[in-house]
Every structure is written in C-alpha cells, then in structure tokens.
C-alpha cells in the first residue's frame, strides 16, 4: 500500500564549511541540512542556562514565507526536545535546511509562491535535521523518525497512504504528520483536514508501526516493502556507516 518508489538515501558531512551536514532524499524530497554549533549566540538572543536552537528552512525557489516560518517553528520546538541544550548555555545551535528537490505535480504548473500545505515536507526536514545534528556531533537524547500519512476515500473504502504523492495529497480527506523518538514516544503530531478521533487513532497506530516497528530497539528488522522503509533502522545504519568511515584507520 506504500507509494514510495525508492528507499531513503543520505549523505553525511559532505559540506566543508559547516560543522555538520547531511543530504537526505526520500519520497521525492531532497533536502540539504547544515548545522553550525555550538557557537556564540548574539547577546540579544542568548539564553543563560540553555543553548538557543535556531532553525532556518529555505525553499528551493523564492524567499521563505509564512509557510517556511511555520515549519521552522514546528522544527525548532521539536528539535530542542532532543538536543541536550543545557550542555551549551549561552550558545547557539544553528540548523539550516535547504530544500533542493520537492516532488512536482506533473499536472499543474506550480507557482513560485506555493500557498499549499506545509505538512508533507515535514518528515523529510526532520530526518535531515537529525542526521545533520549527528554529523555535527551535537549531543542528542534520542533520534527521531517521522512519517506523513494521507487519509483518502477511494470508491467508498477508506485508505491510508504513507508518504503520499502530491497528487494523492490533493485527493486526500485529511493529512497527518507524526514524529517519534527512538524510544518510541510520540513527539510531534500535526493534522489537517477532516477526520474523526477514531480515524486519527488508527492512523497513529500505522504511523507508529511505520516509524518504530519495535520500540524494544533490536536492530534486525530491516526494510520492509509493505510498510515502507524503517527510518529508525535507516538512521542507525547511516550513523554506523559514518562512524565506520571516521574510524577507518582503526
């Protein structure tokens, strides 16, 4: 039932000027993330006991608008939950997320200023941010996995689509984004459209299934075509690869 064509791909620490960086592409999105920090925060921003987490989301085309600001707000509040902000008082951790490829709907000419929904991009942004943070070796309490699910009705029967395409989103009744920590806790949920509490719970369940199929944390559950890629495992393997390459000489 998934529409994901290719599995997630990631590339870490490939930008030279940033402290940490990651390129993540999945479900039609390609996003480049860079993390700088901990660096000196500007006086007017600094928090005495904690690090300031600043998120910048930049669209591929056009200057950021309300849409990006909204995403930034969501990301900022989510990420500072998992970053050990208290480790770096008065410091600034700066996360820049550059969208390079967003799925285009072949059937409409998209305007530069897209007034359409913010949500579908969120999971990709979250993944990128987490990877970039790890590449920058910023202490985290947990990693995140996130998924977007569209609830659609086709010939009477309800159907939940994981990682829907632009086309499917158009048709969907409601759209939901969830993010879970690697402990399996729900850390972010955003929904828009029309849905009943019951529906939401079902979707939550399938999202949980998708993001953290096994909160117990053993790794041997790899990609499963039926449920789409297991991002938790993916994140882990990416990190393992990274560490391995860092310590190639050992």
């Amino acid at each position: 039932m998934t529409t994901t064509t290719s599995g997630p791909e990631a590339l870490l620490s490939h930008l030279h000027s940033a402290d940490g960086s990651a390129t993540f592409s999945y479900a039609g999105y390609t996003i480049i993330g860079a993390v700088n920090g901990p660096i000196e925060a500007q006086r007017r921003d600094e928090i005495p006991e904690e690090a300031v987490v600043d998120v910048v989301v930049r669209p591929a085309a056009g200057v950021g608008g309300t849409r990006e600001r909204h995403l930034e707000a969501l990301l900022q509040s989510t990420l500072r939950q998992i970053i050990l902000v208290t480790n770096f008082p008065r410091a600034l951790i700066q996360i820049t997320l550059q969208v390079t490829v967003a799925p285009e709907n072949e059937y409409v000419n998209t305007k530069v200023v897209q007034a359409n929904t913010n949500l579908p991009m969120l999971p990709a942004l979250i993944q990128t941010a987490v990877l970039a943070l790890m590449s920058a070796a910023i202490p985290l309490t947990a990693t995140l996995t996130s998924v977007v699910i569209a609830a659609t009705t086709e010939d009477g029967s309800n159907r939940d689509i994981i990682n829907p395409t632009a086309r499917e989103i158009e048709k969907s009744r409601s759209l939901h984004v969830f993010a879970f920590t690697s402990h399996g806790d729900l850390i972010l949920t955003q929904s828009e459209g029309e849905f009943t509490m019951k529906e939401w719970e079902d979707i939550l369940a399938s999202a949980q299934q998708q993001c953290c199929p096994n909160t117990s944390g053993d790794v041997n559950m790899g990609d499963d075509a039926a449920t789409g890629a297991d991002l938790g495992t993916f994140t882990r393997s990416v990190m393992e690869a990274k560490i391995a390459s860092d310590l190639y000489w050992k």
Partner: protein
Amino acid sequence: MFLRVICSPQLPASSSQIGRKNLIWVESNGGRYIPAVGDLVIGTVHHSAADFFYVTLSDYTSNATLPQLAFEMASKKNRPQLHSGDLVYARVSLANRHMDPELECVSPSTGKAEGLGPLSEGMLYSISLGMARRLLMRKSAEEGKVVVLDELGSAGLAFETAVGRNGKMWVNSKDMKTVLVVGRAVTETDEKSLAVEQQKKLVRKLVKEMA
C-alpha cells in the same frame, strides 16, 4: 535495553566508558571543538587586556582567556609580548560549560613551558578533529595509523610540527617548500582518509615533485 547514544567530538581524556548509566561516547571526526581540560590547543591571540590574552580557538566561538602570567618565567615585571594575530600553543586549564575556557602555557606542577608558548613563523593548517586526535596519540604511527610525518622525516625533510586538539596543525621549517609539502601530505591524508600504504605513496609523490 536501549542505549542512549551521545556523539561527542572527542573522547574525554581517560576512558571511553563514562560513569553515567546508559551512556557511551562515540568518537567522530566531525563537529566543532569543545574545550576539555588537559587538551593541547593552538589558538590565535585576538586581543590582550590588562592581564589576560583573549585567544580564539575556533571561528564564531567566544574567546578563551590566557593569563599573561601563565607562561614560563612570567612575572609582573616581564610578561610575554603577544600581539593580535600571534599563534600560541597552550593547554586548556579550565573548561566549564558556563564559563569561557581558560588556557595556560606552563605546567602548573613543574613551572616549565614543556613546549607550550608562542609559535613564531611557520604555517597553520586546519585538520579534522579526528586527525588531530590521531596525531596527538602517543604512538601516532601505530595507534593512529598516520605515518606521513615519519615518512617525510625519513625522506630527509627537516621540519617541526605542533598539533592542537581544536583541529589545528602548525608546521615550520627553514625551507618553505618543506612546510608546503608537510601541510599537503597531512591535509590530503585527512581529507581523502588514506590508509598507511596510500600515505606512503603520497609522500613519495610529493617528495618527487619537490625535488
């Protein structure tokens, strides 16, 4: 049981196992240098105040302080004259999340410089934290698997180096070309993450070019 993974740019001086439960440290090359007591660092003097030098360890971070008396034989009467832009090789004497790090260029126990102090002339290269860590290992060749320096040395090049935990390497030699070669050798080893054999090849190549 789930292991809380915390990535940190460098291993804390002693062991790889921290007292805290459910927590291990994973080394990685990336990230920004975070001062830890005992680290040897190379800093750039930013400016000097009444009895402190303010030293930059890395871009965009607040300066570390280096007391003007924390030098060998330094006294109220004769203090070292360091100007903005000078390089200094120092040890982190105080690192605390709530305060700017503090440096020293003298061993508090012996009162000797032990190689610390201003670095004149030469060239400063930026290297990854991982490479810095490897170069700083007691037996960098065996443990750290960096043989370029030894190779260059045995190739008959005369040069001196100092490595800072903050991802800096200082190279000096009478012959400018030598400095260039050493610099390139290390940085390429770092960027292309070369294995021992490749390092040797690289050195041979560079030395040939030089001649």
